[in-house]
């Protein structure tokens, strides 16, 4: 991995060549993501941290010392950003609970072969791809914990319609996950992802 980072690439970065930044991103993104996720246990926070790492590298490209190890430079930035992020998150009740939950799920169901954050990302994409009304109904149920009756009342729909839409939403999400290669998802993990918060 580090052999791909050569002085030519780093010089290009120093000179403000964005393709160099993209190249470095493509070399490190996967490991860096896995690393940061192990620290903050939350997909959204990890998304932010990984982006921030490369934004920091870009902004400080003038000060880049090509003689020192680029990888340790990158890891130091990531480490500090991840710790800051974790520290901030623990002070917010919602995030605190989310980290606690995720960490517990990861502990109880070691998903080494199953990419937990990718599964989470895929679930979010699947939800985004639902037709607007179905998505709204699904999110009201999943995130705001409205009952079917409450949703029906608020949206002026029948309870059967609401129920039907939620069933269809779940089926569509599962189909999307299969399409994206997440075929063997333990039922408990899926339940957790679909009914959380």
């Amino acid at each position, binding site marked *: 991995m580090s052999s791909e980072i050569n002085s030519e690439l780093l010089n290009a970065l120093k000179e*403000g060549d*964005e393709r160099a*930044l*993209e190249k470095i*991103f493509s070399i490190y*993104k*996967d*490991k860096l*993501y*896995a*690393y940061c996720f*192990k*620290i903050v246990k939350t997909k959204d926070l990890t*998304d*932010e941290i*990984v*982006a921030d790492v*490369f*934004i920091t590298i*870009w*902004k400080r490209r003038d000060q880049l010392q090509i003689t020192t190890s680029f990888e340790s430079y990158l*890891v130091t930035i990531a*480490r500090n950003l*991840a*710790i800051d992020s*974790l*520290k901030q998150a*623990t*002070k917010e009740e919602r995030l*605190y609970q989310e*980290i*606690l939950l995720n*960490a*517990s799920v*990861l*502990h109880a169901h*070691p998903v*080494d072969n199953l*990419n937990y954050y*990718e599964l989470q*990302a*895929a679930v979010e*994409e699947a939800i985004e791809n639902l037709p607007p009304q179905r998505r709204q109904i699904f999110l009201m149920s999943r995130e705001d914990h409205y009952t079917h009756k409450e949703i029906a009342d608020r949206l002026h729909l029948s309870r059967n319609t609401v129920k039907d839409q939620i069933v269809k939403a779940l089926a569509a999400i599962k189909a999307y996950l299969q399409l*994206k290669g997440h075929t063997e998802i333990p039922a408990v993990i899926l339940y957790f992802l679909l009914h959380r918060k």
Partner: protein
Amino acid sequence: MDDRLKSKWRRFLNNRADEEEITEILRYIREEGNEPDTDELNTLWEQLHTYTALRKEHSDRIYQAVEERTIRSRSKQFYLPQWAKAAAAVILIICAGISAYLVLDDKSTTFNEIATGYERRIITLTDGSEVVLNLHSKIRYPQKFGKDKRELFLEGDAFFTVTKDAQRPFIVRSGDVATQVIGTSFDISARETNKYEVAVATGKVKVVDHTAGAEKDLAVLTQGKTLSYSGHDGQVLIAEEALDEIARWKDRIIQFDNESMDKVLKVLGRRYGVKFTITNKKISDCRVSMKIENESLQTVMEDLRAVSNQTIAYEVKNNTIIVSGQGCTPDNH
């Protein structure tokens, strides 16, 4: 961090901590002044050998966030569009009246006419020059150019890359204004009645007013100059324009810097082929700074709402978008 806590921290990082240990770690980190052990974090990196690849959608989204805050906010020199790098290119934008459009029609010549709707067209002229015609624009050009000049007519916006031919000047007529190119490529727009705007990215252009048969040189414009001219009162204004602000539509990027909502909606309407209606006149006084690339209209409207601090709402009805809200007081930005 003492050794006991350090081992819990290690377990936490490796997803081996139980709920009680997780709680203890999170509570410890939450306290001001407490720092988790960094040695463990360095080891974590060194020992991280198996990890899965991010799906493309996911990593693209992350890198997009990086780009939004780095590359797109860079200084302008990095943002020169491809066409501006061509040597001796001339870019101009003209807004001109439509009434005079046919007046100069030479009956002895056969003309081609091309009009666009919601699409852009690229047209190659007989002399090898190329025209990119923007949405809702019309161009009329002779099947064969004359011996002493290459003249064509435009209504709307177009970007020209002109083949060099010193013997036959390239002239674009829009309403009463003729733009003669002393360079190789330029952009013209002619939309509002009797109002003209010419912007030059690189190269040199001469703009002449032919109103009432007289020939009045308005200006010779060079790189970075923009001319605004109103045929009603004869007012000529010349200003500097940043190179990458010119003919932005060609690259499908629109940037608004503290622009009035009025203008923004006008540009968006033209670009997306929709009509905007505002429910409150004060909305047009709001100022907007945003950049639009290849987004859908819905995304743009959401962004617009966001940059307006959610002070506006919108509703889509067929081809019309109704924008409502409290609006702003003029010059309050």
